[in-house]
Every structure is written in C-alpha cells, then in structure tokens.
C-alpha cells in the first residue's frame, strides 16, 4: 500500500486489540434490507426528553410520516419507517434491559412515501433554517449516544465555535458501517459535512478517519476540495473516536473537566449523521433508516445492512444468514462500549451502529483477582486517570477518595478493563462509583 499523503494525528495512550474483527465485514458492500411485516419503533431513542406520540392505534401512516413530535428543545422527532397501520403503543424489551414504550407498525407492503418537506438549497438558506430542518427530520447522533444533532449545532452564543469535526474514526472493533458509508456514499458524507459546517457557522470542517480505512480516506480526499472539507488521518488506536480524544487529536485542545466540546470551540458529528443531514436537507427525508454492521464470529454472513429503525434484531440476524453456532453474547454497538442484550426482540434504533454476536469462548468468564500493580491500565487510560488505584478505592467503598481522584472524568471506554491481566472489572466498578457519587451529590442538593 502506498503511503497516505495526509497528516496523521492521535491522542495519548489508549489500547489496540490485536485482532479487531473488522475483516469479517469490511469488504461487504451495504445492502438494503427487504421490507418486513412489522416494525417496532422505540419512542425514547434520544438522550433528553422522549418525544410526544402523535398517532393512535388503528391509524394509517405513510412512510416518513411523523409518529412523535419533540417535547422540548433536547428532544428529537420520530417518523414512520414504512407505510402501514399503527397496531398500538406497547411495551417491548428495551436496549437497557428494562421494557421500553414502542410504536408497533404493521407494514402494508407498499412502502409509500408520505408528504415530505421541500428540498432546501443549503448554500443560500440560513443556518437557523438548516437547524430547524435537522430537528424536523429527527436527526440524532448516530455514533452511539443519540444526542439530538440540532442541540449540538446550537452552542451558547458566548462560546465561539470554529471547528466542525466529522467523526469517521470508527475505533470500536468489529464495526465497519461508517467505513462502508464513507466509501460508498462519499459525496453525501462531504455534502453533509459542509451543511453541518454551514449550520453551525464554522470555517473549518474536517473529516477525521483512522488510517486503517485508507480506501475511504482516498475516496474522500479525491472529492473533498469541491466541498471545502478537510480530511485528517488518525493512528489506529482505541478510543480515537471518543469525543474528547478526537478533539485533542485533531486540534490539540483539551476539553475541561465536566465541559463540552463547545468549550474549546469544537462540534463533533458522526459520518452517519452527516449522511442523514444531507438527505434531510437536500431531499427532506427524515431519519428512518441507518447502516448497521451485523457481525461476529457466530454470524453466517457478516455484513453491512441498511436497516429501517424499528427492525427487530432477530429479523436483522436472519438477513445475515442466521447463526452457525450458539452465541455467548448479543451486543448492540461495539464490543468495547456497546450494551449486552438479554432479548433478541430489541429493535434497531437510530444509534444502533452494530449488532454483534460473540462466541462463548470470547467472553471473559474469569474470576477477578487482586490488582498486581502492573500499570497497564494507566498506560491505556485515554483520560490520563489512574484506574488501578481507583478500582481499589471503589472496592473498599472509598467513593470520596475516588471522587477526589477525578473518577467522574472517566469516559467508560473500557481500555483499562481490556488491558488488565488480573481481569478486574474496572469500568463496572467505576460506573458503580459514579452512581454512588451522583446519589450523594443529589442528596446534598436537597
């Protein structure tokens, strides 16, 4: 492979899994899933307030019709993934293990579009119009957090934002959805990036990509001039795509403790979000489908699929040919930060970047042993914390000490647990400490 002619940047520390599993689905082109009989759209998909449902059971809906309207500023609209009839609003297994309210739609097979908002000429309309369209089309961060995109684009006026970073790092092992999107929908990614830059009113817009996606970098470089979007290469290191790490790698700025990217003049959006924005602005298409990687060793034909929001995971797995052997674990998202599921009835959501099955042998079933002070977690911590002493403090219920040692800065990327030869569940302990500390802080406020 010939060397790339771009700057390669990185954050400090981090880990890299030797076999990142991306080869399973890297070369499989995006395929569009056939129409299913039934879709179940979870109402509370975004961070913030869940939207207000505006349809009733028995009602006929068209594809792209509004199902739920935003109930506040930090809230995103929901649209029907296909045309059909609303069966009802029911409780289904949610992605966090607790039942979630969902709108069940029985498809009529026609997949007919309803009335869509008119296309906008993004170069002439104002940033506010673009933001309003992004909210209207229900666009949220598609990298995993599902934070409503229009909120990110509207930082407080006293904070000067000068840099829009489009996150194409895809540093999670196994996932290849963003990679395929950048390769196959290069133009939409760049167009979306330019629109996002215009909406936020920033001068510099860059797409940042890990160098293991050299073909995507080349494809983007070839066209980036037309849209005045920069391309930056990044070292293959986890968690390169985490917001704070990405900002440090690209700009050298450090987001302060408890701060947001806007505090250092940056906004980060995922490449999937950029494509959705391009569709929403130039075609009025709401966010009703996304590219998801269905992968893992037990999957017969791992690949990248364009799935409608609301597709049950069990149906998605059928698309990938089912499973070869009994899997040990089902994860939505990547193996490092995704959420383990207990039911295959969970539907695909706007932020489901991957459906991952892991073999029984791949799951750690070791008993945690005492810390041997090797310091590998310290070398791996992307936030430059000291995970080993934190872990020991939390084990002894010393939450105040953990708080003073900045446990709240942890981004829960999992590098420390990954690196730990004693198999200590450090991230889980830190999550517990954060919950305990938040509880006691709430108590104090009262």
């Amino acid at each position: 492979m010939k060397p790339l002619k771009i700057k390669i940047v990185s954050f400090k520390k981090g880990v890299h899994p030797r076999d990142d599993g991306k080869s399973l689905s890297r070369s499989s082109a995006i395929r569009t899933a056939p129409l299913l009989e039934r879709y179940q759209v979870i109402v509370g998909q975004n961070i913030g307030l869940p939207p207000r449902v505006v349809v009733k059971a028995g009602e006929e809906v068209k594809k792209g019709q509004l199902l739920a309207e935003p109930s506040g500023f930090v809230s995103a609209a929901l649209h029907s993934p296909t045309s059909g009839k609303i069966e009802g609003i029911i409780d289904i297994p949610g992605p966090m293990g607790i039942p979630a309210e969902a709108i069940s739609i029985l498809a009529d097979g026609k997949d007919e579009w309803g009335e869509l908002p008119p296309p906008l000429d993004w170069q002439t309309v104002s940033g506010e119009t673009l933001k309003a369209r992004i909210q209207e089309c229900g666009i949220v961060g598609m990298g995993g957090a599902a934070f409503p995109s229009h909120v990110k684009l509207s930082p407080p006026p006293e904070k000067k934002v000068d840099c829009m970073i489009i996150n194409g790092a895809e540093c999670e092992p196994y996932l290849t959805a963003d990679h395929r999107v950048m390769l196959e929908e290069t133009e939409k990614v760049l167009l979306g990036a330019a629109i996002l830059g215009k909406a936020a009113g920033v001068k510099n817009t860059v797409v940042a990509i890990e160098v293991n996606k050299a073909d995507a970098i080349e494809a983007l470089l070839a066209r980036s001039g037309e849209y005045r979007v920069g391309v930056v290469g990044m070292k293959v290191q986890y968690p390169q795509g985490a917001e704070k790490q990405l900002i440090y790698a690209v700009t050298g700025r450090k987001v302060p403790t408890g701060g947001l990217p806007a505090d250092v003049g940056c906004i980060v959006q995922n490449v999937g979000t950029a494509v959705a924005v391009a569709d929403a602005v130039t075609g009025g298409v709401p966010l009703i489908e996304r590219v998801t990687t269905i992968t893992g060793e037990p999957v017969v034909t791992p690949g990248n699929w364009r799935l409608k929001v609301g597709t049950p995971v069990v149906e998605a797995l059928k698309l990938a040919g089912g499973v070869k052997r009994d899997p040990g674990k089902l994860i939505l998202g990547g193996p490092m930060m995704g959420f383990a599921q207990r039911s295959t009835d969970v539907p695909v959501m706007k932020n489901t970047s991957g459906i991952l099955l892991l073999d029984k042998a791949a799951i750690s079933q070791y008993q945690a042993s005492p810390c041997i002070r090797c310091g590998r977690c310290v070398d791996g911590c992307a936030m430059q914390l000291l995970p080993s002493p934190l872990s020991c403090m939390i084990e002894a219920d010393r939450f105040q000490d953990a708080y003073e040692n900045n446990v709240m800065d942890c981004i829960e990327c999992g590098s420390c647990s990954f690196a730990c030869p004693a198999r200590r569940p450090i991230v889980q302990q830190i999550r517990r400490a954060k919950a305990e500390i938040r509880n006691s802080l709430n108590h104090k406020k009262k």
Partner: protein
Amino acid sequence: MGSTIFLSAVVLIGIGLILGAAIGVVYKFFEVPVDPRVELLLELLPGVNCGGCGRAGCADFARALIGGEAAPAKCPVASQEVVAQLAQVLGVEIGRAAKQVAVILCGGDLTHAKGQMLYNGVDDCISASQVAGGPKGCRYGCLGMGSCARACPFEAIGIVNGLAVVHNEYCVGCGKCVDVCPRGLVKLVPVDAKVHIYCKSPEKAPAKMKVCDIPCIGCRKCVKAADEGQFTVNGFLVEVNYGDYPRPDVIEKAKCPKNCLQTCRGHEEFEYGKSIGESA
C-alpha cells in the same frame, strides 16, 4: 565517675519534678468537665457504633442521652434490661420506641425467580442492577449480590439461594441495610409483625408470573381473610399495613395461591457469621 552519675541523676529528677509540677498545674487550670455518667453509659451501651440511633456513635448517643435529646429506648441494639439500666442511671423514663427488624420483601430465590442472563461482574447489587436490568427476570426483585449483607454491622443478613434473608434474632433494626438496596426492598417493621407479603413488584400479574413462581398477583384472598385495614391493596400488589398488622393465623385462613404471604423464614438456613461467603 561517681559524681557524673550522681549529677545526671539529680538533673533528670529535677527536670522530672519541674515538668510534673507543670502538668499538675495545667491539669488543674485547664480541666474540661466531663460528666461522669458518660463513662457509665458507655459501659452499658453496646459499643458497636452502628448509628441506628441516628447519632454518630455510642459516645455521641451517650452525650445526647445526658443532654436529654434522646430517650434510652432509641438505641435499637440494647436489650430491654440494658435500656432499663440506662434509664436508671439517668433517672428518666425509658421512652417509647417499638423494636423494629428489617424484612426483605422478595421471595424470589434462584428456585422461584427465573434468571435471564449470566452475570459475571462486580459482586454488588448496584453494579448488577446497572447491567441490562439485573440478572433476574424481575426488575423489582432481590438481586442477591449481598450489598445489604455487607452493610449489616451485625451479620444478620445472609444470602440463601440467591436471596437476601434477615435473621430476626440477630437483626436489631438499625436500618443500615435500608439505604443500600438499589431496589428498595428492605423495610423496617415492628418485631411483632410476623406476616409479610414477599413481593414488591408493581407490575401486572401476568408479567410477574412470567418471571417468578411466587409473586403477589393481587388476588386479595389475604385481604378477605384478615380484618379490615390490615392489608392495603395497591394495583396488583397487596401490602401489609404495619401500623395494624395481621396475626400469623391469617396465613392458614387466606390460603395464598402463590405462597407470597408468609412468616419470616429462610433464616434458619444460614450460619451466623458465614452468611456471604458460602453463597457465591
């Protein structure tokens, strides 16, 4: 040679006398008056510093007793005789505080509650409840990771077959376990209330029956069998009214179809002081 030893001895004894006199003077003039009753009370109090009285420890409680801010019966650990002795030392009334014990309102042990996943993480209830809603199917039930048992200063809680149970004889009702349960299943009840409904799930009966063999399905057989007001019905969940609790014979009369109406049980199965280790 001899004179050197003599001289040093004289100097040291001299210094000793001077400093001793100084200490004596300081002790006399800077004396902090301590109520002699504090010592006496501390000898009577259990000395475990559990905090069940709401004070920082036994010494703090003793000071509060002398200051008249607390009544002797506020100590949940002390026996009736000790409380009487405390009152005698102070020359006050015993004060009224019904002795309480903790009860964990879930009957879903590993035999009765269906598990939904294999949990392989931190042995702690809060951690377990954060992972996909916890290892058991019922998201209101006892997680059985023993956070309450570890919090108990008297080792009165044990994990028997994946379920936390309280040993009535060891429980003093200090209430330390109440706050640590992420499911809020621990309740302090009067020691004489012997009948409990071991379920706290507000879900609909069919949903509960899917994940547990012994849930309260809200059939109200117990309500009919008992006097009025002894149970309160709350949707699909019946709760014992601990202000006016039913007598144990209600169990016989009610014929609870799901066996969630029971007296305290399970505690016979755990050995005092070895409660957590063997469960793992």
